[in-house]
C-alpha cells in the first residue's frame, strides 16, 4: 500500500475487524468484545491496538495472529499489532450487539457493570448476582463453579429448565 488514495478508510477496516471471531467464543467478534482499542494509520502503516481480556488468556496471541492474517487477506501489507495493557479491559466494553450474540449463543452476558463494582471487601457482603438463564430467561439459577471453560466465564445452572450454561463474568 502506498499513498493515501489507496488506503482503505478506518471505517472500512473496522468493518473487516467486525468479521473476525473471538477464537474461544466464536459467536462474537473481537470488535464486539472490545478487545480492539484503536485503529489508526501511521503514515502508510496500519496500527491495530488490542488489549488482553485476562493477563494469562492464551487467546490473546491467537487474536493478534487472526487480525494480522485477516487484514493481509484484504490486501494490507504494512500493519502492526500493538499490545495495550492500560486501561485494563472491562466487560463494560462488550457492545450491546455482543451481549445479544452471547445470549443467543447460550452464554449469559455480564449481569452488572464493572464500573460500579464495589471493592472486594464490600463485595463479600453483597447478595449473590441474579443471572438469567440464556435459554428460558428464568432468574431461578445457581452458580456451579466460579470458573468455566475459559478464565472469562463461570458455570451456572438453571433450576427451571435445568440447562447448564456459561456466564460471562463481570470484571
Amino acid at each position, binding site marked *: 500500500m502506498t499513498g493515501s488514495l489507496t488506503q482503505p478508510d478506518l471505517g472500512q477496516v473496522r468493518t473487516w475487524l467486525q468479521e473476525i471471531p473471538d477464537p474461544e467464543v466464536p459467536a462474537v467478534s473481537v470488535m464486539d468484545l472490545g478487545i480492539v482499542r484503536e485503529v489508526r494509520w501511521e503514515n502508510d502503516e496500519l496500527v491495530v491496538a488490542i488489549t*488482553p481480556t*485476562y*493477563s*494469562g*488468556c*492464551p487467546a490473546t496471541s491467537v487474536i493478534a495472529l487472526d487480525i494480522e492474517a485477516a487484514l493481509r487477506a484484504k490486501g494490507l501489507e504494512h500493519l502492526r499489532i500493538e499490545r495495550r*495493557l*492500560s*486501561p*485494563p479491559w*472491562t466487560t463494560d466494553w462488550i457492545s450491546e450487539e455482543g451481549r445479544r450474540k452471547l445470549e443467543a449463543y447460550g452464554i449469559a452476558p455480564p449481569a452488572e457493570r*464493572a464500573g460500579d463494582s464495589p*471493592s*472486594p*471487601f464490600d*463485595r*463479600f457482603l453483597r447478595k449473590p448476582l441474579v443471572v438469567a438463564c440464556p435459554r428460558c430467561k428464568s432468574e431461578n439459577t445457581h452458580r*456451579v*463453579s*466460579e*470458573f*468455566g*471453560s475459559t*478464565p472469562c466465564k463461570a*458455570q451456572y445452572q438453571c433450576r427451571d429448565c435445568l440447562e447448564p450454561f456459561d456466564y460471562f*463474568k463481570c*470484571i
Partner: protein
Amino acid sequence: MNEQEALFEYLLRLGDNALILGHRLSEWCGHSPALEEDLALSNVALDLIGQTQLWLNLAGEIEGKGRDADKLAYLRDARDFRNLLLVEQPNGDFAMTMARQFYFDAWHYLQLQGLTGSKESRIAEIAAKSLKEVAYHLERSRDWVLRLGDGTEESHRRMQAAIDDLWMYTGELFEADEIDRTMIQAGLGPDPSALQESWLDLVRATAEEATLALPQPGWAQRGGKRGIHTEHLGYILADLQFLQRAYPNAVW
C-alpha cells in the same frame, strides 16, 4: 545497591510470587477433589502465570541484560528466586491449598492496590490489570475458608490445622527491608508494613465467621525475599525447569 538494581529485585519478587504459586496450583490439574475445582485452580494458576510474564518481562527490561520472562523463570537457581516462603509451601490437602491461597490473596490484593499508585507507569498498569483478577481470587479463597471452617467436624479440623500451620509464613509478607525502603522512597511501591492492619482485619473477620481461631502473633519464618528458601523450592524448580535444562532453548 542503586535504585535500578533495587527495582529489578523488587520486580523479581512480584514475578516470582506469581510464578511459584501459579506452579503450585497447576499441580492440582487432574487431581482436584471435583472437576469444578480442577478448572478453578487451573484458571487461577493461568492468571498468575500471565501476571508472571508481565512482571518478569519488565524485570528483564529494567535489568537490561537481554533476559526475558522465560530466561528469568527457567534459568535461575533457587538462591536467585525472590518469592515469599508462603507460596512455595506444598499443596497438602485441599484446606491447606485454600488457606495458603487466602492468606496470599488478601495480601496480594492490598499490595496490588498500593502498586496502582506507583510512579513507574508500567508497574501501575500491570497492577491495575492484575487487581481485577486477584479480587476474584480473593472472593473465592475466602469462600472456601468459610465453607470448610464452618462445615463438618472434619473440614473444620483440617482448615484449622492449615490456618495454624501456615501462620508462621505470613510474617514475612509485612517486613520491609532495604529494597522495600528504596521503593517506598522513590514512590514506586507501597510500604509492606502499612498493609498489615487491613490484612489482619480481613483475615480476622473471615476466621471469626468461619468459626476458626487465628493463631497469636509469634515467630515468623523469613528469607524468601532474599533468596533463602525452604527445601520445597528446589523440587518445584526441578519440575518447572526440567525441559529448558535438558533441552536448552527449546521453544513451544
